């Protein structure tokens, strides 16, 4: 697609969203058998899988840390996930994305509980639209919870961008390609920022507003992550009926006032729902 003349017409973006609206997101928890925790996540046309292994032994040994767990994060794109076939193996972009993604989730992990161990997080991008790193961080966060890794809270992530001189939430592909700025952000439930990158052109004032918009986006995503995890626990519990009520109560008490504004309609068509 060539650069469109305008990205926002009468306050509506090319894919019909409002400037502050996220793309639909779908989250499935515990989709893999071998991994200790896993998550399949769709975010617009992004399709990503996250798996967590650990805490487990560190190989090679000299990478052990004496007082904390080592957290490793590998972000990888499938060869067929992008328009032009990608050569297998890590490139410079995915090395950087892996690093900042690890630094986005690691602050929430109680690594001190598992000295000399490794917690391995793998994110595979099966289909890439714009925003794969934010999709991957959202999925990784859920997979960590699914693996019962003790955490201070879930990390949620989305990007804010600038098109037609206006800030918009969660860039889709064309907005990303031709936009004026891209600011991926990840956040704790308390609004602490664990990922922040930016390229393009922003004024100080725009930066401030971008972080505020990202905060709203992350809150919505947090709700979806929580719902998906609760759904998962419920399913587990249906197989262990007697325990169900207890958990219901816990879930209730944790409920916050945040309301999901995304219609999580796209429940079909997933990779793993047979």
């Amino acid at each position: 697609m060539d650069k469109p003349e305008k990205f926002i017409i009468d306050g509506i973006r090319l894919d019909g969203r409002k400037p502050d609206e996220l793309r639909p997101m779908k989250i499935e928890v515990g989709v893999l058998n071998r991994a200790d925790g896993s998550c399949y996540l769709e975010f617009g046309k992004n399709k990503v899988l996250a798996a967590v292994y650990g805490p487990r032994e560190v190989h090679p040994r000299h990478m052990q840390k004496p007082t904390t767990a080592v957290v490793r994060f590998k972000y990888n794109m499938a060869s067929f996930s992008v328009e032009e076939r990608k050569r297998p193996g890590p490139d410079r972009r995915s090395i950087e994305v892996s690093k900042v993604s690890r630094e986005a989730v690691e602050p929430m992990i109680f690594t001190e509980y598992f000295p000399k161990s490794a917690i391995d997080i793998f994110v595979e991008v099966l289909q890439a639209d714009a925003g794969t790193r934010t999709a991957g961080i959202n999925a990784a966060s859920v997979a960590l919870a699914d693996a019962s890794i003790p955490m201070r809270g879930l990390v949620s992530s989305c990007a804010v961008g600038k098109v037609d001189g206006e800030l918009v939430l969660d860039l889709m592909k064309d907005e990303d390609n031709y936009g004026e700025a891209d600011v991926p952000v990840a956040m704790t439930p308390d609004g602490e920022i664990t990922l922040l990158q930016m390229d393009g052109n922003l004024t100080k004032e725009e930066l401030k507003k971008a972080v505020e918009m990202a905060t709203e986006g992350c809150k919505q995503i947090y709700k979806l992550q929580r719902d998906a995890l609760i759904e998962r626990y419920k399913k587990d519990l249906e197989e262990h009926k007697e325990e169900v009520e207890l958990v219901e109560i816990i879930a209730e008490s944790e409920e916050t006032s945040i309301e999901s504004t995304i219609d999580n309609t796209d429940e079909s068509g997933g990779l793993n729902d047979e």
Partner: protein
Amino acid sequence: MSEEVMNELKRDYLYSLILKNQRADGRGFEESRDIVIKTNIIEKAEGSASVKLGDTYLVAGIKLQLGTPFPDTPDKGVIITNLELIPMASPNFESGPPGENAVELARVVDRGIRESHSIDLKELCIVPGESVWLIFIDIHVIDDGGNLMDAACLAAIAALLGVTVPAKKYGIGEDFKLPVRDIPIAVTAVEIDGSIVIDPSIDEGRIAGAKLTVTSNIDGSISAMQKSGVGFFTPEQINYVADVAIKRSEELREKFLEL
């Protein structure tokens, strides 16, 4: 250490079952696990399929690009098959370039498709010696529940069956369906303590001596075979596996795939 003890116990248990003509998941020796195939799941790929075979899950994606043919086949398209055993799929897989298992899997998948003349490569020639279609078959193993070989072969051919050649995008005429002429299907059996069981689970695969994959075609002929594992087969066992594999591939074709 405790893992080794577990493995020892598991091994003894599985052996004892086999002696009683049983398998841990209740299957018969010639019975394979449930299969779910989904196609065209990746819009960015020209073709794609996911296969769930018991606990095993993998995705194949097909990308087509223009390129130059091999010098010795100037009038034919090119198939490049790659398979990644990414560390997401198993605690035993490591990052890095494909090891011998990944290479073997990719090459056996490739041979089944190539040797059955499943893809009419001559129809993928644009200018002889200069420009042909390159077909990249990339297989991403996501959950290793055993018998990756059969799942990988199935995903590859299922993905190929849905490919539209994007000629228009490259300005060389109208899009057309990839000319697929055959449906090679691989069936794998392992030898455990003298018995032959097909579609081994991951635990069965671990305790097996030798493994044999037979890829067969619509007409009942065989296009690829591969023995692997530290063990052996008698000629009778090989003929038996070939028989069962051909039969089973017919069932799978009937149930899931057609030209």
